[in-house]
Each structure stands twice: as structure tokens, then as C-alpha cells.
């Protein structure tokens, strides 16, 4: 029993990651846009699971709340309201496949090189040790003290975008 649970806690992370890759592929390869969105939803939920396993509870909750609960609903709204039958006839693989293969290989090489040269170190375990009272408090402390200025700037920017969107659509509706 003990061995099993240790095995689980050790390999659960890989299982979740693997699943999330599968669902992520589902986003790209499914021909039906609604199926894509569902795959995306599962990917988001699984990513939240990854966060949870790294003891980033707050991040996991926010991931669920904002991405899985909010943004994908909007995606789904758009997909449902736009005519879908046209998408069914779309060809997934275009004729420039040779070019794309070369480009993708190039991208993989560059990304790999970047990852290889980055000094990642043992960050997760450090984080694990710092926050005994839960990650929520740590996030809050850093957000509202050290990073208060970027935080506020980001919020103002979002507000501007929000108001801008409303004004743009309103103007169109009145025309």
C-alpha cells in the first residue's frame, strides 16, 4: 500500500502531464471546433492539476477559475454562435507540408537549445520550502508589496481594453 501511494505521488505528475499533451493535441487535430474547445478545457483542468501537485494551490484555483471557468466559456460562445459547418470541410494539412516540417524542426532545435542553456536549477523544492502557510499568502505578499506597481499597471491596462471593447461594439451597433 505504501509503495503504491509513493509510486502514485511520484508518477502522478507524469501521468497528468502526458494526458495534458494528449488533450492538447486534440485541440489541434480535431476537425470540430466544439471538440477542440472541449479538449482545451481538459487541458486547462489538467494544467491546474500540475500546479496543484507542485503545491501552487492558488495558481491552480486561478487557473480553473479564470481559464477553465471564464475564458473557455467565451471561446465556446464564439464557436457556438459562428456557423460551424463550414469548418468541417476545411483541410487540415496544406500543401506546404515540406516547408512546415522544416520550420517545425528548426523551432524544436532552437527551443531545445534555449532550454539546454537555461540555468533552471532546483527551483520547485525551494518554493516548496518557503511557503508553509500556503501559496496564497505568498502570492498575495509579493503581489501587493514588491510587485504592486506592475500589478496596478496591468489592471489599468485591462480596464482600458475593456472600456475600449465596449465603446467599439457600441459604436458599431448604433450605425
Amino acid at each position, binding site marked *: 500500500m505504501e509503495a503504491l501511494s509513493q509510486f502514485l505521488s511520484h508518477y502522478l505528475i507524469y501521468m497528468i502531464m502526458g494526458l495534458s499533451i494528449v488533450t492538447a493535441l486534440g485541440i489541434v487535430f480535431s476537425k470540430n471546433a466544439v471538440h477542440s474547445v472541449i479538449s482545451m478545457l481538459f487541458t486547462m*483542468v489538467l494544467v491546474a492539476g500540475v500546479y496543484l501537485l507542485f503545491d501552487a*494551490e492558488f495558481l491552480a484555483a486561478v487557473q480553473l477559475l479564470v481559464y*477553465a471557468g471564464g475564458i473557455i466559456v467565451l471561446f465556446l460562445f464564439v464557436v457556438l454562435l459562428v456557423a460551424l459547418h463550414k469548418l468541417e470541410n476545411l483541410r487540415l494539412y496544406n500543401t506546404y507540408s515540406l516547408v512546415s516540417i522544416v520550420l517545425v524542426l528548426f523551432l524544436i532545435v532552437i527551443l531545445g537549445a534555449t532550454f539546454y542553456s537555461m540555468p533552471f536549477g532546483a527551483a520547485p523544492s525551494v518554493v516548496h520550502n518557503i511557503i508553509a502557510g500556503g501559496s496564497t499568502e505568498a502570492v498575495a505578499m509579493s503581489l501587493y508589496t514588491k510587485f504592486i506597481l506592475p500589478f496596478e499597471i496591468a489592471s489599468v491596462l485591462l480596464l482600458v481594453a475593456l472600456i475600449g471593447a465596449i465603446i467599439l461594439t457600441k459604436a458599431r451597433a448604433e450605425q
Partner: protein
Amino acid sequence: MDFTTTYVLLPTAKIIAVFIVVLLTVLFLTYAERKVIAFMQVRLGPMRVGPWGLLQPIADGIKLFLKEDIIPLKADRFVYWIAPTISIVPALLSFLVVPWGSETTLFGLAKQPVPAVISDLNIGLLYILAISSIGIYGILLGGWASNSKYPLLGGLRSAAQMVSYEVPLTLALVGPVMMANTLSTRGIVEAQKGMWFVVPQILAFLVYIACAVAETNRAPYDLPEAETELVAGFHTEYSGMKFAFFYLAEYANMIVVSSIATICFLGGWLPVPGLSFLHLPSFVWFALKVGVFLFGYLWIRATYPRYRYDQLMAIGWKFFIPVTLINIFITAFFLLK
């Protein structure tokens, strides 16, 4: 305690206990709904199956099991199949962090009392809100996959409604969280030992009740399934167990929001002030308080007409959200003073 008991046996036992209780409650909530509303409407309600129709929910359950599972010809089979599941799983998962009592030994399974909650997450409340926001997809996808106009309208309506009402619902809960200084559900209850949060947070409490009714798509905000307009809303085309899943999810959600209200405003498992001499077990107090809320649900349904869709949205955005924001400011002001 050894490792196996702590990490495997106890959680499993808790999970099984909670789920059995929740499913039974859901079953008999449907019975209670029919009975309570029947008595309010001077009729008898179910009387045929068992004494006073007590076995009616079980008969209904069997009926739904045995019913033919119809899938519309032009439906998207995969989405049609997965929608009820998406709907019910988050509803049940929410019970993970609901503390149903102070401490328990789980009928002697644990040698010393353990917290009466499956998992006391430090982000408990946030977790419930996060997980319940997934439930929207079930309704939205179910409505779309049926490939029929009324379900689609119902699905879109309810998704818009639930997304909108999540905002004031969450904001209303910020007040108690600020006062308790924790997101843990147990922590919030324990912070109310002196005074229930319903007293200082009365504004948030009232908004929460209204939003909770809207969030669970119940009367007078039951527009997604307003039968006189949209036939049966998003589950018009569903039958058999799939329909039962939607049904169960709705009632499970009712219990979840009632539990949150109890936890955040009415002191969870704490006894009613002045009645603590009764020495009732803590889970009885909890059940009683949740029961009051559930009764309120039924009472409202028997009394009020239905709002119109735009009116519902207007109330949500123009009234509830400002009120909850003001409540947060007031709470912050008094906490900082």
C-alpha cells in the same frame, strides 16, 4: 496512526460516506420538493409508492435507469454523451472541502478524532468556486449538442446567467473571507465562534442568497429551463440516465450553495447561539442549517413568478455587483480601523 490509515483508508472512508449521504440527500430532496410544494399548493404530492410516497425517488431512479436512452439523429454524439458527465462531476467534487461537522472518528475507524472534512484545503472556498465554474460547460454543451433550437437557447441563456452571477456570488463571499482571514472552510467556521458572519455581513448574505438561487438555475431565476418559454431548456432532448445526471447535478449544486451559505454566514456546524445546551452532534446542526436553506429554495419556487431574461441580467450587473463591492469596502474599512 500508520501511513495506510491516514492516507488511504480514512480518506476513502470519508469519500464514500460523503457521497452516499449526498446522493441520498439529492434523492430525497426531489421527494421533499414535490411534497413541500404540494402542501403549499393544497394537494398531496406523491402518495402511491410506499407509505406517503416515500419510495417515490427510488422508483423514479429505477425508471430513469431503465428508460430508453434516446440520442437525436443529428446530435453530436460525443458532446451529447460527455455533457451530463461534465455537469455532475464538478457538482460532486465540490463536496471535497465541505466540512460537515467539527470532528469525527468515522464510526471508530480513526483512533482519534479527525476533522470532519474530506480534505481541508487551504484554498477551500476558492476551490469550490473554481470547480463549480466548470459545471457551466455541461449545460452549455448539452444545449448545443442536442442540435435543436430550444435547448441551444436554454444552454446559452444559462451559461450567460451562470457566468454573470458567479461574479456577485464570489464578491459576496469576499466579506466573510476577509473577516475570517482564511480561505479554508474549516477556518472560516472556526472564526465564527464569537459571532456568526451573518450579522456583520448581512448585505453580503442577502446578495449571496439571491445569487445562489440564480447560480443553480432555480425559480425565480429558472430561465434556462423555463418550461413555458423554452419547453425544458437545455435538457429538452435528454432522456434516461443522461437526463438524471443533469437532474442530480442541479440538486447537488443546490446542496453545495446551501452548504457554502451555512459555512460562510451561519457558522457551519456551530450550534445556534442560546441552543447549545441541546448537545446535538455537530453534523446535525450543519444538516439543520442546510435544510433551512433548501426549504427556502422550495418556498421561493412555490411563491414567485419568473423574471425575464434581460431583467435578470440587469439585476445581476447593475445591482448585485455594486452592492457586493460596497460591502467589501465597508468590511475593509472596519477591519483596518
